[in-house]
């Protein structure tokens, strides 16, 4: 690990104060758990002079059970998410995904907001300054070549947060606050398909909370991820599945993916499975649909072929097991 440069740390008590502090300093970043940001600072990927620490903001720590929705503060830790009885009951996949992030110590300080706003990852990007300089940098940062796909002009760095695909199953919305006030957008609209610039946050904006509408009736959901090791690792492919049956037939099917492209997304074209019996042949077709859309690139040491296959396999296994 490289050395940490000197920075100013600010400790605001309210969202508004945080935004003001961030706005006042030219090179500043919001800091929550820091498990992603501090590593990137040590590697010279981020070079802020000011860090605005969000964990002192009470509003961002609450999990609120409303009549129609559950609101989760962005500074709620991943351990709290994983252990929340409320979330387990209503949004099992979200709690499971939070419990699958990295290792126990990361989950102790990593936050929901941090996991949703995680920088995209690539073996050519998550390296030291010396390394990236020796490799003439890359499209995502200071360079003009993508080493994953040198012929193209697109960055394929993969979004690798575990929680986002699970929240996508439930039409979650995120509440953002910035110098121009607050706004609420669909979680899906927080992301764009560009590894260089995958978040639609505007300058100075931070995530305050996530609002998840309750489902009228309980539909089984689950999350599974592939990784080389059973702890620590980011997902090679992460799959969230929501599947409801009526009279033994599929009545509801959604699948969210992460780790295989610059953004988390819901698999398209699943409506053709509605009304079908979830037998082996049907779920193998589901698997194949997922495989086709999990277009992983060479952003990890594990080859793309495997990540596509395993995304499909995990979707199939989850669909078999969650109800």
């Amino acid at each position, binding site marked *: 690990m*490289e050395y940490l440069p000197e920075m100013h740390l600010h400790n605001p008590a309210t969202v508004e104060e945080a935004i003001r502090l961030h706005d006042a300093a030219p090179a500043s970043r919001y800091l929550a758990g820091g498990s992603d940001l501090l590593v990137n600072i040590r590697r010279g990927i981020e070079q802020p002079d000011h860090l605005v620490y969000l964990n002192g903001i009470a509003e961002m720590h609450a999990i609120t059970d409303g009549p129609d929705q559950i609101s989760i503060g962005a500074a709620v830790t991943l351990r709290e998410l994983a252990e929340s009885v409320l979330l387990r009951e209503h949004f099992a996949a979200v709690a499971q995904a939070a419990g699958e992030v990295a290792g126990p110590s990361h989950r102790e300080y990593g936050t929901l907001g941090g996991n949703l706003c995680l920088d995209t990852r690539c073996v*050519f990007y998550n*390296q*030291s300054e010396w390394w990236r300089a*020796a490799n003439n940098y890359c499209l995502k940062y200071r360079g003009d070549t993508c080493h994953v796909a040198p012929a193209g002009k697109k960055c394929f760095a993969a979004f690798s947060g575990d929680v986002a695909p699970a929240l996508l199953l439930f039409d979650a919305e995120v509440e953002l606050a910035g110098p121009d006030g607050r706004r609420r957008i669909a979680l899906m609209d927080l992301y764009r398909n560009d590894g260089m610039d995958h978040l639609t946050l505007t300058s100075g904006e931070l995530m305050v909370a996530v609002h998840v509408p309750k489902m009228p009736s309980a539909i089984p959901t689950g999350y599974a991820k*592939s990784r080389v090791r*059973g702890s620590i690792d980011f997902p090679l492919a992460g799959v969230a599945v929501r599947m409801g049956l009526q009279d033994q037939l599929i009545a509801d099917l959604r699948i969210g993916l992460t780790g295989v492209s610059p953004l988390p997304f819901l698999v398209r074209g699943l409506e053709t499975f509605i009304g079908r019996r979830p037998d082996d042949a049907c779920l193998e077709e589901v698997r194949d649909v997922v495989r086709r859309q999990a277009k992983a690139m060479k952003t990890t*040491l594990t080859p793309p072929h495997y990540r596509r296959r*395993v995304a499909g396999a995990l979707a199939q296994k989850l669909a078999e097991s969650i109800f």
Partner: protein
Amino acid sequence: MNKISPIQSIGIPKPLVDGPEKATGKAMFAADFQATDATVGRILRSPVAHANIISIDTSQAEALPGVLAVVTEADCADGYGVLPIAMNEWALARHRVRYRGEPVAAVAAMDVATAQRALDLIDVVYEELPAYFTADEARAEGALDLHDDKPGNIEREVEFDLGDVDAGMAKADLVREVDFHCAEVCQAQMEPHAAFAEYDAARERLTIRPSTQVPFYVHKMLARTMGMSESHIRVIKPHIGGGFGCRTETLQSDLIAGLLARKARGTVKVVLSREETFITHRGRPESHIKMKVGMTKDGTITAVDFTAQQRGGAYSGYGIVTILYAGSLIYGIYDIVSARFQGYRVLTNTPPCGAFRGHGTVKTRFAFENLIDGMATELGLDPFAVRRANLLVAPTMTENDLLVNSYGLDQCLDWVEKASGWKQRKGKLGPNKGLGMACSHYISGASKPKHWTGEPHATIHLRVDWDASITLLTGAAEIGQGSSTVMAQCVAETLGVDMGRIRVIAADSALTPKDNGSYSSRVTFMVGNASIDAAQNLKALLIEAAARKLEIAPEDVECLGEVYRGGQQDQGLTFEEVVMEALKGEGTLAVKGIYDTIPESWGGRKYRGAAIGGTMAFSYAAQVVEVTVDPDTAEITVDKVWVAHDCGKALNPLAVEGQVQGSVWMGLGQAMSEETRFHDGLPLHANMLDYRVPTIVESPPIEVGIIEANDPHGPFGAKEAGEGSLTGFLPALTNAVADAMGVRATALPLTPDRLLELLEKKARDERVSANASGKVA
């Protein structure tokens, strides 16, 4: 009446003597040392893989306020290297860089930010040369030589042809030949490399605390690199956060710390990042092994014919030894009557490889044990039966003249077969589950030292003063493996005293006798024997003193450890009283013990380099691995490992169990997930996320059986315990997966993507053959 008897210290579980410091966080590692005047040392590394250095301009860096020293190769008096016959490395690259990340210059500055700014101001002009990242590329026709004296980029070609291999193959009922590929792996020890160097400018003396397994070699290479008298250098080994072989040679960071401290005329701390520690490397080389074995219907091995090509990296390091071990240690475990070997150690533009736990033997053994497992299946033989058909009978000399005086492999086999329920469970575990087994062995120290000086292999000093405490002075490097504890046990047992009397002072060149270091599993055997010798010499002095005081003949003195007496009726003398008597007219007692190997153990002369492999004793191990494979994701779960290790007398069964479990676990990482990967010579793996050391989640229960086939020359019969069990895991895993899934992996690590490819290929082949047979029908 209380029966007085000597206190026993051997063969009972003992906590490590340096445990309390480590458990409480008080242990000082190299990076923990502080000094008010300490400056930060930082290294400029080559961004290119292979280039001539046209110029290095350090003037701007030197002019930067806060910079105390800048060093380059111009500050080095000489090159260095661990093998006297292959010293072709420099602390800072001289005229040419040969791998990305090779140190080129270094600075000492008041703080880390200034040091980094200074590095950024150093201007190096490179003239790039063609670079070779694989052994095949480096050996290709027309490739530029990395070193002028190594034509064709061959560090060493090894050949032997013992017995009649062709006749052996002709005699076999089954001959099989398979190619094996094993990735390069890195030790990934917990503590990144560090050195804390203090230069006394008035006296021109250097004191250094390096994170090393070999303080003596660091001492020698510092003197050589710095052009200093060896007598002006003091090397103190601090606590060490693991080594596993990567610190069995002097590292650039040790030398750079010394160079910077001298130039800054003060104190410098060099702490490498994890990435730099990976780049320093000295791990196990990527290897391509072609293994051919002949076997009769009853499982008897008739001949072995094999080749190995190792990608050694940019400098010689231990390379010659590694490729020699890869050949010679085909012997020493089974009764091999004929074997032919051709090995190539190749120089490439990648970080230099070194000696990794199980040095040289691991990949050869993987190939061999994997291949014979498949052959056993083909012949319808039980894998245990095949091993038993080829056992050695000790004492014996192998065909390549390795001494085998003790041999517990048969007992190891019996233990794991029974413990794992092999006979009852094999083939009955249900779908996607399997059992695999394999064997391995390792030396108890290389019998011929690298620096042949005529000195004994090990020397121990014991000092006893008026307070009746025993101070044990040893140069042996405690690196977490428990060497200081073993020495204390050996001395305590020999004298029959309480271990609490003994204080171990280890590895400070100003205080302790020289020791070659902690590598090749030499310490327990050699330093343990020297400890016993020293304790016996001390005991003789004490008996003489007791005899004087008791006014009896020395042979009539009964030594009961804490009491010396003339007979049962005699109240006797306490240890303190005996010591006081011994000090009369003598003053402080200082005795010595030494150990040397016997010429019969020095290996053979049948081919060039045949001494490598020679050892006083071999450890033996067998293990059974049980796996479950997820057929959809190809993820392998290791459910359980049973391992039996013959370490002769287990001096400290607690430490033995820990070493064996650690070895198996390290083998698990190499077998399943760990590998280095390069992008044009840049390490893609140089962090703990991409270099995939197993976490506790993947770590299976490991049940250890200790087998004690005592060696006649071992200290109390003891042999090696810290390396031999690593190797067997690799083939046992692939054999278990073959049992579970019907596919045999020949490339490591067996990651889920590699296994999925094998499973998909099998499914395709089955479809093709089903279609073909369908057509026939």
